[in-house]
């Protein structure tokens, strides 16, 4: 039975899954919004940083670039001039940032020097530092130094060469970086954002608003790594100069081997975005909480009560009617109501069961009482009648002395009536027994031939008195031994035979016994008055004869055919009738054919009679 059940689903589980899916979608959306917001904010920040980098660092780059060009021009001019000093002075005038400029040979011999401030000499020049670079034609720029004059300056060295390109010496310019320094220091994007410049060769901090750190010679090589980001590919978010997460823009100097960086702390960048973030995170948390609460609610109000109900229904189905749904799982809602109703129903069923049980016991008791009554009554009724018959018999047999003819006749009439009464009582008791289901079938092995002989012998007397013939025919296919209740079968056939003789005035009666597979039929045919069509319907009913008057003419109790039908049914067969008014009638009994091979011979348990219907038997 279990296998046939459809695979069961759980409404609660489906609902839970739906909730989980919806909330997952919600969370996903929130996370996406968060991500998008963050992305766009940082992206915007990068643009702003870019602008700043352009403004400050770009400017710086240009400044250095201009200076370098000018110095190279000045160096070239020296060759073609007699007045080195004037050339140098003109350069000074052109470039306010330079405060001293020196022409010097590669060997270290000073050629010419001019300084902006009288009495202020140039910085010491260490030829070794840059001679090889310059000799190869390159430009050298020294470290930014703040020690002299309290202002940041840098030494810029460009090669001085002949027309043919041979480098004979260098021009060394001390450049005041104050202005440029300020430019860089004043970068203050996003509040605490800043800019700085590093030497690309060693990562040394060259320009930064905190001069002490520059002076200390701090390095920050990490900035030099081309693409080192915390989240690869993600928006230039890296670890910054001051050890915090920043959004950074890097700008490589073209004029000189420097790297400029503008950074802004990430938290500052995201600050305007914060309120939105808080809202989204709150939404996220709210969604999660709602889902959890809803799931719990569903479980409590739907899943658990339904499971309890299902369990209860199963208990009841298994027959445990005393079971009641446990109230602790239920709330005052539809499911709770269902539980209550179920309990009421179980109560009703239990009560009804008890009532039925009681009624059943009463019925059984009643049946038992009826049987006892039948048995007692049977004995009680027969005893006096047997006494009557006994004494009549003695008198009629002359065994109690001689009696005259008149007395003989009268006593005869007494006896006839007593017999009639006995017959009636036997029939009534038989029918009662059958209908009470108390008729036992005693099956024994008998010989059909012998039975038929006995039946014939019994009816022949009565038939001969009316001048009727009795013929019998046995099918050779009938087995020599049959298993059947001999007395009941005899009762049936005797009834039919005596009826046949009773209702026939001329001609005869024929009994035919045939076999067919698992059944046999006994047919009793007569050439009597026949049965009118309307009577066919009720001929087998108790006390119904064709017409009230017939009873007096033909005798009998009126129960004969009813008993025949009951017995046939009891034995697992049936009786049918066909007739033609004036021609005769044929009664056909059909019964199961059993031989010793089929079943052992033993008494059959009392069989319940089948409910009688009108027409057929």
């Amino acid at each position, binding site marked *: 039975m279990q296998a046939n059940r459809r695979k069961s689903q759980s409404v609660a589980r489906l609902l839970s899954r739906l909730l989980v899916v919806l909330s997952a979608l919600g969370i996903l959306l929130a996370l996406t919004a968060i991500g998008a917001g963050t992305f766009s904010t940082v992206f915007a920040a990068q643009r702003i940083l870019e602008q700043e980098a352009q403004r400050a660092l770009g400017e710086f780059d240009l400044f250095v670039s201009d200076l370098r060009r000018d110095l190279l021009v000045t160096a070239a001019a020296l060759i073609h001039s007699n007045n080195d000093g004037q050339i140098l002075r003109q350069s000074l005038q052109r470039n306010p940032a330079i405060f001293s400029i020196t022409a010097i040979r590669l060997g270290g011999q000073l050629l010419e020097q001019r300084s902006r401030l009288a009495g202020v000499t140039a910085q010491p020049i260490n030829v070794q530092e840059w001679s090889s670079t310059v000799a190869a034609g390159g430009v050298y720029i020294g470290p930014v130094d703040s020690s002299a004059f309290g202002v940041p300056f840098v030494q810029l060295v460009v090669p001085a060469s002949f027309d043919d390109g041979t480098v004979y010496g260098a021009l060394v310019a001390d450049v005041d970086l104050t202005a440029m320094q300020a430019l860089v220091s004043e970068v203050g994007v996003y509040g605490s954002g800043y800019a700085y410049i590093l030497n690309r060769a060693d990562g040394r901090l060259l320009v930064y608003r905190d001069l002490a750190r520059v002076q200390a010679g701090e390095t920050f090589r990490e900035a030099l790594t081309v693409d080192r980001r915390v989240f690869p590919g993600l928006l230039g978010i890296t670890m910054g100069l001051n050890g915090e997460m920043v959004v950074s823009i890097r700008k490589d100097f073209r004029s000189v081997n420097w790297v400029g960086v503008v950074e802004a702390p990430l938290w500052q960048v995201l600050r305007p975005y914060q309120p939105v973030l808080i809202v989204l995170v709150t939404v996220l948390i709210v969604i999660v909480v709602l889902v959890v609460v809803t799931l719990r609610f569903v479980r409590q109000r739907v899943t658990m009560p339904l499971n309890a109900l299902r369990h209860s229904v199963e208990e009841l189905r298994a027959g445990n009617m005393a079971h009641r749904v446990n109230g602790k799982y239920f709330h005052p809602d539809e499911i709770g109501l269902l539980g209550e109703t179920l309990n009421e129903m179980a109560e009703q069923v239990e009560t009804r069961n008890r009532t039925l049980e009681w009624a059943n016991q009463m019925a059984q008791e009643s049946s038992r009482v009826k049987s006892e009554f039948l048995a007692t009554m049977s*004995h009680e009724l*027969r*005893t*006096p009648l*047997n*006494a009557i*018959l*006994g*004494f009549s*018999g*003695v008198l*009629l*047999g*002359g*065994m*109690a002395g001689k009696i005259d003819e008149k007395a003989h006749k009268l006593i005869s009439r007494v006896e006839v009536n007593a017999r009639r009464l006995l017959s009636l009582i036997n029939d009534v008791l038989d029918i009662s027994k059958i209908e009470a289901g108390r008729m036992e079938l*005693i099956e*024994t092995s008998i010989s059909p031939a012998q039975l038929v002989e006995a039946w014939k012998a019994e009816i022949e007397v009565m038939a001969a008195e009316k001048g009727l013939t009795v013929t019998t025919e046995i099918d050779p296919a009938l087995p020599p031994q049959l298993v059947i209740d001999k007395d009941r079968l005899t009762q049936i056939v005797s009834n039919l035979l005596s009826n046949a003789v009773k209702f026939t005035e001329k001609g005869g009666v024929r009994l035919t016994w045939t076999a067919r597979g698992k059944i046999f039929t006994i047919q009793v045919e007569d050439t009597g008055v026949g049965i009118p069509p309307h009577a066919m319907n009720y001929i087998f009913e108790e006390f119904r004869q064709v017409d009230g008057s017939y009873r007096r003419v033909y005798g009998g109790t009126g129960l004969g055919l009813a008993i025949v039908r009951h017995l046939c049914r009891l034995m697992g067969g049936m009786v049918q009738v066909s007739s033609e008014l004036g021609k005769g009638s044929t009664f056909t009994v059909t019964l199961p054919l059993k031989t010793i091979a089929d079943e052992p011979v033993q*008494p059959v348990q009392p069989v319940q009679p089948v409910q009688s219907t009108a027409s057929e038997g």
Partner: protein
Amino acid sequence: MSSEFASDVLHEWVVVVIDDEPDSLEVAQLVLEYYGADVKTAVNGADGLAAIRQYRPRFVVCDISMPVLDGWGVIREMQHDPALTHIPAIALTAHAMVGDRERALSAGFHSYLPKPLTPATFINDLFRLLVDIPEFKIALSPRS
């Protein structure tokens, strides 16, 4: 009423009939007496046994279901008493159940007749049952 036997066929035969139903008892007695028997009656098994011991009948007709001592009790006593064991006893019973006949025979009854007794055929049936006993055979000689 035709009978094969003369009306004194049981002349001087002592017969004990035991039956707790008075009417049934009397019918049997009437029929047997008509055929000349000296009938001693009893209404229960105990009295019946006393009668058997006292009168040593030719045969006994005994009902099965009786108070005090029933038919089975009577036949048991007769079997155990060497003086009585040779007396043929015929069982009478109102309930014609399968196995009753076998039970009666195995208990020691000579044979078995169903109740109620039909006066017209009682004697015929009786002798038909007792025919294997020599002295009874003599009684079956045709009517003189």
